[in-house]
Structures are given as C-alpha cells and as structure tokens.
C-alpha cells in the first residue's frame, strides 16, 4: 500500500505568540483515479483567532476534510498559505483502537509520544469522571455506546495537548438524539477547556449552536462564500429566533434556500 504523507507545513510555532489559524487563498488539487484533476479547494480563506470556535458548513465534497488536513499540516497547499498553531485532528469516525480499553484509548496521544503506560493512564483517568464516563475506564470500545466513544475520542484529542482542534463532523455517525445531546456536551466541554477550534459539519444548526463564527463553503472547488458572526450568549437554543434567522442566512448562502 502506497502511503502519501507530506511533511508538516512548518516548524512548531512557540505558543507564547499563538496565532490561531490563518488559511489564505489556499488551493489544493488532487488527481483522481482516471487521471483527471479534482480541485478540492480554490481561493479558500479561513481565520480563527486563538480561542475562537469557527464552524465550517458546506455540502458534501466541498473540501471540508481537505481543509482540516491542511490546518493540521498533513497536506501542503498547492497555492496560498496555511499558518496555524499545532493542531490535532479528530476524524469523523472515532477510530478508537478496538483492542485497547477506554482509558488507554484516551491516553493514546501520550503513549505515542513516549509516556509510560502508567503515566499515560494517570493523566487520563481524572477526565473520565468529568466527561461522565466514570466506571468505564476498563471497557473496550465495542462495549460502549456511540456517544461514549465520541467522548473518549474527544478526550484523546484534548490530551494531545495542542492548542488547535480540528474536528471533522464529530457527530455525523451518531443518531439524531445523541447528536443533540453531544452538541450540548461539547459546548460545555469547550467552555471548560477553551481551544482554537475548527469544526466541520454539514449540520447548519450545529454550527450556529456551537460556533463563535460560521463559515459557509461553496460546492467544489470549495471556497468561503459567507462568514457569519454568531454573537449570541451561550447556551444557545435551536428555537431562539436569532438562531433561526442565522440559520436562514446560512442556508441562503449555501444555496439551499432563496
């Protein structure tokens, strides 16, 4: 199997001067299987100030995942620039290791950086209670519900200790009820542990409920067509007229409604 993994975009920036995320006029093209070029992103801009939560909404295939990989340094742009503090990716599937217990899964980031198993477990253990997972430290992923697995995946992401979180449709795999619950949970979690967050989702309401700003992307080749500031106090309710109004504006920008 041929793996293509490009070097990180830049040296780790000293966190004494955090810059958040700055994506500027980025273009990224892939060759598809038949040799034709697929332009995933063209002229994409995105700015997230340190500590800001930016939610990106867009139709399928608009390059959202590519954008996150660029932010994390897994790919280099073909044109434009990406500057970001060190970022960790939370992929769409929870990707918990099926052979490892919940505690070891959460502590994976520490283990792969060389921490001993005892030290890694000790660092992760106190979080289980905070995340409502007390008592499940020794469970295997197959024994846990979808919501619990996502919480462990998020804990793993947090414990990577990086200032930027790149979340790729974190709740897409959950049923609608769990998804709503997890959105509220994530909002709480980020209040307690603020980070710079770039969250990609196809759910416009989710974006408005969670984000400080909502960036709307066009279809492929993806670029930002709207940047809506959500200056509403938290916790936000879906039924709030201001939320609904923003949702309308976003849907119009998406081209879903007039």
């Amino acid at each position, binding site marked *: 199997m041929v793996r293509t*993994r490009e070097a990180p975009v830049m040296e780790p920036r000293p966190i004494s001067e955090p810059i958040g995320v700055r994506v500027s006029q980025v273009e990224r093209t892939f060759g598809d299987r038949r040799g034709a070029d697929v332009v995933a992103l063209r002229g994409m801009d995105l700015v997230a100030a340190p500590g800001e939560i930016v939610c990106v909404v867009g139709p399928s295939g608009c390059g959202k995942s590519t954008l996150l990989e660029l932010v994390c340094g897994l790919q280099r742009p073909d044109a434009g620039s990406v500057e970001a503090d060190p970022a960790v*990716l939370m992929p769409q599937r929870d990707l918990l290791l099926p052979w490892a217990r919940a505690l070891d899964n959460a502590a994976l980031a520490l283990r792969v950086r060389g921490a001993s198993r005892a030290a890694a477990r000790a660092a992760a253990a106190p979080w289980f209670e905070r995340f409502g997972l007390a008592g499940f430290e020794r469970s295997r992923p197959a024994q846990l519900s979808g919501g619990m697995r996502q919480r462990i995946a998020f804990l793993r992401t947090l414990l990577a200790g990086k200032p930027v979180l790149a979340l790729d449709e974190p709740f897409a795999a959950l049923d609608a009820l769990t998804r709503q619950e997890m959105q509220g949970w994530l909002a709480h979690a980020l209040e307690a542990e603020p980070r710079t967050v770039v969250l990609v989702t196809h759910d416009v309401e989710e974006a408005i409920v969670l984000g400080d700003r909502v960036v709307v992307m066009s279809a492929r080749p993806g670029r930002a067509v709207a940047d809506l500031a959500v200056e509403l106090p938290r916790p936000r309710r879906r039924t709030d007229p201001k939320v609904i109004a923003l949702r309308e504006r976003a849907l119009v920008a998406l081209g879903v409604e007039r």
Partner: protein
Amino acid sequence: MSGGHDPNGAARGAAAGGRRESAGRRRGHTRASARGLSAGRLRSAGSMLLALAILVLFLGAWELYVDLGAVDRLILPAPHDVARALAEDRGLLWSNLRVTAGEVLLGALLAAVAGFACAIALHPWVTLRHATYPLLIATQAVPILVIAPLLVVWLGFGIAPKLVIVGLVSFFPIVVATLDALGRTDPDLTKLLATLDASRLRTLRHVELPSALPGLFTGAKLAAVFAVIGAVFAEWSGSSSGLGHLIQQATPQLLTARAYAAVVLLSLFAIALFGLLTLAERLALPWTRNPPGGPDR
C-alpha cells in the same frame, strides 16, 4: 460538567451514579452473555455431534466396502485394521511422531520468527517491499518435491534439510498474511497518529502491530498445516526416522494398515496444531470475539 445520558437509564456523571451505572452495565452484560453462552454452547455441541455422525458414517461405509470383499485387505485396510495397527505399533508410531512433530514445530517456529521479522522490516519501505515480493512468491513456486532431494544432497540426512523445507513452506503464508494485515491499517488512523506526533516506531508498536495480529494468526494457521505436509515430503527425500519415513518404508512392505495409521496420526497432529493456534488466537485477541451486549444494544 454534566455527564452524557446513558441509555441504560443510570445516573449522570456523579461518582456514585457512575458506580451504579457500571454495576447495571455489568448485570446486563452478564445476563446477555449468559444467554449467549448457552445458545452458543448448544450450537457448537450440535455441530460436534453432526461432525461425529459424518465420521461414523464414513468409517462405516469404508468398513463395509472392504468387508464385502471389493478390494484386497492388503491394498485398502479396513478401519478396524488401521485401529489395530494403531494399537499394536503404538510405540513405533509414537516415537516417529515425536520426530516429525519436532521437525514441524521447530521449522514452523523459525519460519514464524523470520516471517514476522521480514514483514515488519518490509512494511515501512515500499520500494524494498515491491522488490522482494517476487522473491517471496518464488519460495513457493518451486515445488517441494523438486527441491527437497536437492537440499538433502546439500545438507545431508540430519535435521537441517527438514528444517529448511518446513521453514520454506511455512515462511510464505506468515510473511504475506502479516504484511497484508499491516498494510490494511486504516489510513485515517495513520493520519490521526501523524497529528499526534507519533514516530514511525511508535505507530508500528501501538497501532499497526496489534491490528496486524489477527492476520498473523491466520498466516500461522495456514503455515501449521503446510508445515506438516512439508515435513513428510522432507522425510521422503532422505530420512531415517519420522512418520513420513515410516509410511515410505511400510508401503512397499504392504504394511498398509501401519501406513494408514501413520496418516491418521499425522492428520490428528495437524488438527491439534490448528486447534491450539485457534485457542491461542482467542486468548490473545479477546476483542475479535463477538462483543457482549453493551449499553447500546
């Protein structure tokens, strides 16, 4: 922070609630697995009885065929002749089985170590892998019947040529199965680990190797069966002991019952090896079994 709602209906977040939650989960787990256990046991008992029934039918048909005089007893012994040979020659059969078993186990172990090492070494470097894959296939393409006597000419009558032959036939399934399993690591997982700043070695150790273990066991099970065949061929090419050698000697002497008895023992040995590996797999890879009911199910 408020914990997530668990569909089990247990408390949320608080430590006492967590304990209640886990107790409820365990109770539910035991109930579900107890149910599963009895149903599973019933099913496996049923299939064992069926296998036994088929075996009895087959032996009965064989016995009838010989007893009704359709074929000379010296050419095709009846099952009871084979059973008698098993009993009468048991000292001889057992001592030769030990020789063959030693060749199989030692040869397969060497192949497993070499195969595993090669797979780990080849996995990270694509060009090296593409260069050596044809060589790996070549180790299998040459028929053992051809190289075995050549190896005996080179290495003599001792255990060396047998280990080489057994090793050769066992090497391929282990290397290929492990290499393929390593290569099938989820690419998204690899991306995730890159963002966690995991070194190549640590990715291998914490993620790729554990996920390749099931593939390794598959290769090992195949290798075990091939190894038994390889040992027999190796003995036919030049040996003074072993079950293969025994068969080779017994056949021209028309001691066919003894030869068949040796074949039965070889088959049982191969089955036992396979069964041991399956057991080891179940012990080493508890997560690959069907999961018991969790809170969601």
